[in-house]
């Protein structure tokens, strides 16, 4: 991944990532920690990105989702990448907290879909957002209808988990 790609990811997704993490954690301080850790990790892992992992946004959201999963498991936000880079997580002002809360409310379906693997994202977008029939999507994707149903189901389950932590 080139520096320009990292640049564009930060430009286009820092706030959406923060909103996603705020929505998932409900805690501005944790969301800020995880946002900082996500981008620090992306900076460190930049050379490891391969296009067969999916779109760069998917890769970035996958990092964020992993940081979120770690937080749920450990009970605290990991700061390994930040420590390695000696990044100080900026303190939050009252305005920042309010902004993160607002961002959490503005997490859109598109933003959440970014976190999914490409096949699930395509299926969910077609089925849920475009209201297309499973069979029609299957024809377009060149797979069975059952496969599309499975992708939609898995995608929805993944979104439920990422939004609220419950299945």
């Amino acid at each position, binding site marked *: 991944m*080139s*520096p*320009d*790609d*990292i*640049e*564009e*990811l*930060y*430009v*286009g997704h*820092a*706030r*959406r990532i*923060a909103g996603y993490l705020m929505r998932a954690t409900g805690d501005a301080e944790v969301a*800020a920690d995880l*946002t*900082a850790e996500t*981008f*620090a990790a992306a*900076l460190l892992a*930049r*050379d490891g990105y391969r*296009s*067969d992992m*999916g*779109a*760069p*946004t998917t890769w970035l959201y996958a990092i964020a989702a992993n940081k979120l999963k770690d937080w749920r498991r450990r009970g605290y936000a990991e700061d390994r990448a930040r420590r*390695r*880079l*000696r*990044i*100080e*997580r*900026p*303190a*939050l*002002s009252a*305005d*920042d907290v309010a*902004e*993160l809360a607002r961002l959490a409310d503005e997490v859109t379906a598109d933003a959440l879909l970014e976190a999914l693997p*490409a096949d699930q994202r395509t299926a969910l977008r077609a089925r849920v957002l475009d209201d297309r029939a499973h069979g029609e999507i299957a024809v377009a994707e060149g797979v069975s209808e059952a496969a599309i149903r499975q992708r939609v189901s898995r995608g929805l389950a993944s979104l439920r988990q990422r939004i609220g932590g419950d299945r």
Partner: protein
Amino acid sequence: MNDRATSDFFGALAVELHAAARRSPRRRTRLGDIAGGVAAAALLTAAVLVALTVLGGGDTSEPPSAAASRPAPVGTVIPKGEGTPPRQRRSTVVATGTARGIGPWQLEASRSTRLADPESGEVYQPEGLRCLTIYLLDPPDDQVLGASGQCGEFPRTPGFSRLQLGPSRRRSGAKPVLVYGRVPRRATAVRILVPGERPVSARLHKGPESSRGDYYAVAVKPPLPGARVNWFGENGRPGSRGIGLMPPITRH
């Protein structure tokens, strides 16, 4: 697209990333480039405003050259890869000026480039969004933030935008913040309105003929709680619903 400026957290985090990339080079990658990239990421937002320094972009932290401290004439076209720091896209100088406590600045317009996943073709930034970027040509010593910008429209105030460029959160205090943006050609004034205070007028800058509108800029000192900026037409009436300013200007 939306019309919200970044909070301090995002700008400060970008500065942290920038500094981290500069002090810990790794492998053979030019980390200055990454730093510049991460820093520049905070400059050119598709949906939000971000701000941080790009003046140290590349492998060097040298200040801008003396030649670079003089604004170019309005209408000057800067090819991609030229200028200090090197422009990422072809850009046109649309306004210049000098603000007290901030120094000379140069406002440039450009168009966003299309960014898409090479495998799936999925577009995550469309081509052709209007971008506005401001460069401080001789920033004060304590002024960390050297540039700022935004791509996209402010849908609730067509033709009118609000951007801010000011010091980093740790150095904010009462230091001036530059408020600037696009304004429709028919505007006769742009004012910052603060509850209970006298309005602050911004200077209008006529854009080049190729520009779809004009521009404005004004330096203000925080705090101005509840401040909004709006443009006014010949009849003296507000031209839009106005746009709220963001911290550190509005911080109490």
